[in-house]
């Protein structure tokens, strides 16, 4: 297990992290979400030893991370980090060697990873000559080349086109299948929803929600009801107790039911207006979950 446990961090008076904790199982992908400035990057930097936590620790296989164990982590920093004028192949080899791979093996591994990521032909080019998407792949190669036991990636998908997103996602899923725990942060929630086994949402320095996407959905399940009543007049459900209108457009109505509100009375009211073409609980998307937990006051979210 990769465990983030009770991380606290303040920069001056600014409490960035206030007890952040979550765990990632080997062979699973963890999506780390949160608004800008929520503390995702700080959390990852603490894991990489680039920021010192005021309290709490990050453990891998039960042992707190230190300089030695961090060498076994593949890391992709937020705004990327490559030498622009250094050749792609030499660069990846260099990072492998910094992680303790011998010269010959490092060059071989670099060539292999660049080949797998479709950059075999660009090995001799300086990084600055590559497109953003290809630079991102070099960055991934640099993170993967030393065969890390853990991957921590800060916004790996930002700035990629859909094809780039797919190939990067495929690369990460390969790692997960090989048993590597992968943590990545992202604002692209649809992607997180699609790729991740579990999700953590960070807001105001605390984890406001963690669990599998399914678990998070269940938490919110039974609350959003979609009813399509083409012939209904505007405000047909106004009189029903415990029902709030989320959206209403030409009879396509999204309702939020308070705890204890009776869904059958909603159905009855709908039938009274005429035809009912759709009546079903709606699974919230991660985006909706996110908006909800991030907007909610802290005590309710915890």
């Amino acid at each position, binding site marked *: 297990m990769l465990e983030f446990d009770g991380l606290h961090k303040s920069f001056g008076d600014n409490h960035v992290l206030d007890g952040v904790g979550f765990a990632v199982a080997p062979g699973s992908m963890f999506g780390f979400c949160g608004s800008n400035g929520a503390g995702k990057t700080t959390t990852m930097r603490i894991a990489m*030893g*680039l920021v*010192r936590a005021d309290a709490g620790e990050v453990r891998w296989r039960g042992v707190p991370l230190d300089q030695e164990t961090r060498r076994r982590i593949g890391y992709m*920093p937020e705004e990327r*980090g490559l030498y622009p004028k250094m050749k792609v192949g030499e660069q990846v080899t260099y990072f492998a*060697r910094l992680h*303790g791979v011998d010269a010959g093996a490092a060059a071989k591994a670099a060539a292999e990873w660049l080949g797998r990521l479709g950059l075999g032909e660009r090995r001799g080019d300086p990084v600055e000559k590559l497109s953003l998407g290809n630079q991102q792949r070099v960055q991934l190669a640099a993170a993967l080349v030393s065969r890390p036991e853990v991957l921590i990636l800060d916004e790996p998908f930002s700035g990629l086109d859909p094809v780039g997103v797919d190939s990067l996602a495929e690369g990460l899923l390969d790692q997960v299948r090989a048993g590597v725990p992968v943590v990545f942060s992202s604002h692209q929630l649809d992607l997180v929803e699609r790729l991740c086994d579990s999700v953590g949402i960070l807001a105001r320095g605390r984890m406001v929600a963690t669990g599998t996407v399914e678990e998070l959905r269940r938490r919110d399940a039974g609350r959003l009801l979609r009813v399509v009543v083409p012939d209904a007049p505007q405000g047909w459900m106004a009189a029903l107790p415990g029902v709030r209108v989320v959206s209403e457009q030409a009879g396509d109505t999204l309702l939020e039911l308070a705890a204890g509100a009776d869904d059958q009375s909603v159905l009855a009211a709908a039938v009274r207006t005429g035809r009912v073409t759709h009546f079903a609980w709606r699974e919230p998307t991660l985006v909706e979950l996110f908006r909800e937990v991030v907007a909610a006051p802290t005590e309710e979210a915890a």
Partner: protein
Amino acid sequence: MTAPRTPGSGELVRLVAGRELSTRIRDKTFLISSAIILLLVLGGMVFQAVIASGADDVTIGLVGDTATLKPALVAEGTAVGADVTVVGLDDEAAARRAVTDGDVDGALLDGAGASPRLLVERSAGSSLTATVQGAVSRLAVGRQLSAAGIDRLDVPDVGVTELHPGSDPTGERTGIAVVGVIVLYALLILISNFVAQGVVEEKSTRVVELLLSAMKPWQLLAGKVVGLGVLGLAQIVAIAVVGVAGALIFDLVSLPGQLIGTAFTVLAWFVLGYAFYASVFAAGASLVSRQEDLAGVITPMTMLLVAGFFVALRSASDPTGLLATVTSYVPGLSPLVMPVRMAGGGVAWWEVLLAVGLQLVAIALVVRLGGRIYAGALLRTSGRTTIREALRAERL
């Protein structure tokens, strides 16, 4: 693939140093500046050689009797330190032509006669006049002596006793030291700037985050300083070898031992100066996040180097003066001034030792303080960090 090991500090420093070396050695700025420095050194020597040979070469045109005058002219020339070439000319008209065309420095008419005349273009140089006057007098005196029945005259040779054998006018020695200091200064500026640019490059591209997740700041700094230092040292050694070899080949110096000694002194002071300036430049550069802001922080440090350079040049003409004496102890200035003072002579061993000691203390302080600033400022990648912020920052 074999399982990765945990690289030790030595290996990490070597890896960083190796990257710095292999990157810079292919860098155009470096190659071009190296070529320019080497060309300047070579060009300077060729210039010196031409000037030196030009000053001592005298070509004299001779009308009429060359058989007796020629050996006399050559002998006199040797006595005044000139290399005399004698050219035979037919008559006065030919002599005038040769002088006007610059084929000869002067033409002697009626050299063995009663009224010898020397034709020159504008004015006769001292070695030309002395040579001709000496040769003509010697012949005339010889002729008159034999007319008087004396064919041999006892003229004692003057014995020369050297009070300080091997010592040379300080001019040549300080001259060598000045050339050495110019090279030292140019390389200190160049390599220290490489260090500074490298630090900012890693900060501005955020590579530093990846690097620091695999090593400690001091390992990164040490690798950088060592790698570029090896590069600078290799370059100054190459220049020294070319310079010394060139000077010996062109016969520019009268005391090769002195030259080689000064070359070694300059090399040693380069190491001391580099260790100091590289640390200062690295710490300064770590405070900014963009190449554009670099000039602002390294200008004060560059000024110190420039000041040292000018003081050194000034000291060359007065190596025993107060300015040279005082500044040769000031850390940061001493690497540039002390070699000149040492070349000038009269520096006691304890003075050199004191200057080296002070410089070493300064290096230790700068490495310690600079290392802390560097480690504290390295991950502050937004805008400019103050020295206070860097020192107060948490240490990783």
